[in-house]
């Protein structure tokens, strides 16, 4: 059995229809999974003797604006043992913006999830320190969401007072 089949079968062993879609585009292997099972999937991928996806290289999100499921959270993980990269996508149900944090599995996801919270407003439940990464702490918006204007919202970030 090759590695790709093995990944899909093992994730599917967690529960019924956890893998929703498998795609491959230009040698990038991608599985779309059930977002409520993300912790179990992460644990399996990292600790399974055959897979050993030990390194989480990126966590980000997609804002689909008008689609039924508005947000998709995307994880990029690397298996050093197999020299294989896997992309995991998790659709969030409806207009929900909450998903379980994977920091307990991959420590490197900490800042990536903070960045995703800052830019997309995805709440990572049980994240140890979910503060903003780039924008000031008192900023109220999430700049990479589709409804956010490119030039920002006037007055939303304070400037120092002008000198007379």
């Amino acid at each position, binding site marked *: 059995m090759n590695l790709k089949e093995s990944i899909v079968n093992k994730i599917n062993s967690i529960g019924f229809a956890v893998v929703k879609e498998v795609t491959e585009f230009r040698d990038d292997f991608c599985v779309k999974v059930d977002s409520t099972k993300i912790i179990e999937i992460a644990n399996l991928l990292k600790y399974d003797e055959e897979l050993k996806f030990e390194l989480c290289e990126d966590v980000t999100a997609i804002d689909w604006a008008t689609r039924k499921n508005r947000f998709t959270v995307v994880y990029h993980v690397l298996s050093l043992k197999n020299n294989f990269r896997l992309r995991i996508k998790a659709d969030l149900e409806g207009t929900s913006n909450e998903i379980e944090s994977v920091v307990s599995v991959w420590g490197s996801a900490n800042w990536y999830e903070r960045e995703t919270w800052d830019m997309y407003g995805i709440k990572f439940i049980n994240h140890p320190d979910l503060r903003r990464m780039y924008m000031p702490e008192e900023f109220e918006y999430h*700049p990479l969401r589709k409804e956010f204007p*490119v*030039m920002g919202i006037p007055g939303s*970030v304070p400037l*120092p*007072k002008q000198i007379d």
Partner: protein
Amino acid sequence: MGLEAKLTGDGYLTTTLDAIIAWARRSSVWPMPMGISCCAIEMMSAVDPKYDMSRFGSEVMRFTPRQCDLMIVAGTVTYKMAHVVRRIYDQMPDPKWVIAMGACTSSGGMYRSYNVVQGIDQFLPVDVYTAGCPPRPENLINAVMQIQKKIDQSKARDWQDKKALDLELK
């Protein structure tokens, strides 16, 4: 400086205090290198031996604002950085001048975006704007010369009764 040519046999000259103070100020404008991004590289080459800004008395880059007269804001200023830039400017002793070096500082440049201040003149009193992305060293030297011209026209007393800044202390 041409000063010695003015000396006649007796070795003294007459001038006004304003002129001599302005001359002293213009001949030693110490810059604060507020190098925030790529413009800083050109600022460095402006002081290197090839372009040699020390010909104009401005080679002494001080990395503390307390010893500076001129702030060269070289690079993209984001909203978050704006508070830092302003805080450093506030620490410089009067009289002080500001050069907005390059497109980003002058107008936001190519960063027409929510996170970049669209021109530092929104929170700093800019004296000279420098065009370019980044400006060539000659252009920066020209800006320093413009500052010198501005200092030449100033009076020594211009800063005497200046009120202390209204600091935004957090």
